[in-house]
């Protein structure tokens, strides 16, 4: 398995999973979704809440706020907690409590996004609470999910004909050797993501003239994956953590098999 980053921003990434197979690609997807350890509000103690919102409603909103996770100091099941506290009396009608108003007991573990509204208050209302943050995994509850918009597809091998050949020639000619071949008047592009600008050209051409762009085959050993982070972890931390978790699972399986063989 090899990961080749195609494009990324601070919060989203698109990459090709190479030397893989459908089972491994799906295992990796599930590791990204459910196995990456992340911190989230797990319990909320309310001392006072005279706002118009139920305790449960506020607690749920707090749980959805991504918390910047420190993977070095915390791990799943270590019993360590961080508390976020809040005590606020509204001086005006319509005052909003934001995620950034929560005061953390650990300066590193703070809400990853400070601009998320938690509750709207009316004049004189008071809310005092303590939110307990724990490490968890996405498979237990989606509040512990480090990614959103995660998905993958097989790698398409395109055949460009007629109009598409004319429109996209300049991009195909810039492709690295071996990523495309000529067949008659057609181009067969094996790795269209390696050619700068070709992806957009194919997209435009497919809308203009669907006949001229054909997916000749779907490559079952390469997968185009993409996801976004909730900003609890960085893209790099998520990829590393997911790979670690997957390796741990493979190793424990290997161990169990060898134990069974030895004991049998």
């Amino acid at each position, binding site marked *: 398995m090899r990961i080749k980053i195609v494009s990324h921003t601070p919060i989203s990434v698109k990459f090709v999973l190479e030397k893989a197979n459908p089972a491994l690609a799906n295992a990796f997807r599930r590791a990204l979704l459910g196995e990456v350890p992340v911190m989230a509000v797990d319990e909320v103690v309310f001392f006072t809440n005279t706002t118009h919102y139920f305790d449960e409603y506020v607690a749920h909103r707090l749980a959805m706020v991504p918390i910047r996770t420190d993977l070095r100091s915390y791990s799943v099941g270590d019993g360590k907690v961080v508390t976020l506290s809040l005590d606020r009396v509204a001086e005006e009608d319509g005052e909003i409590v934001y995620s950034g108003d929560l005061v953390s007991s650990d300066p590193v573990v703070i809400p990853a996004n400070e601009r998320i*509204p938690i509750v709207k208050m009316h004049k004189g209302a008071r809310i005092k609470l303590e939110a307990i943050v724990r490490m968890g995994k996405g498979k237990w509850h989606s509040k512990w999910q480090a990614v959103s918009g995660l998905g993958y597809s097989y790698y398409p091998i395109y055949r460009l004909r007629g109009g598409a050949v004319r429109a996209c020639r300049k991009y195909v000619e810039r492709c690295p050797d071996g990523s495309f071949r000529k067949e008659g008047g057609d181009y067969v592009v094996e790795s269209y993501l390696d050619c700068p600008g070709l992806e957009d050209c194919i997209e435009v051409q497919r809308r203009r003239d669907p006949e001229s762009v054909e997916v000749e085959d779907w490559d079952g050993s390469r997968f185009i994956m993409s996801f*976004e982070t909730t900003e609890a972890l960085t893209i790099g931390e998520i990829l590393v953590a997911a790979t670690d978790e997957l390796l741990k699972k493979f190793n424990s399986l290997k161990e169990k098999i060898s134990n069974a063989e030895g004991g049998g």
Partner: protein
Amino acid sequence: MFPVRCFTCGKVIGDKWDEYAERVASGEPPGKVLDDLGIDRYCCRRMFLTHVDLTGEFSRFAALARIDATPESPPNV
């Protein structure tokens, strides 16, 4: 109040409502504002397009039922 996450994909959207509401109120087309905010998927887009902010509405009635309602904090209309 506007949801913190997209119901379907889990993207954090709570922080983007204020800007969206402001710009749409000032006459910009909602689709363009969503593009600018980086809301690409239609699951997240519908969260914005279909949201109706009722906080002001129900707080009028909640205020009447409040146990600690005092004369100096009249119902929020």
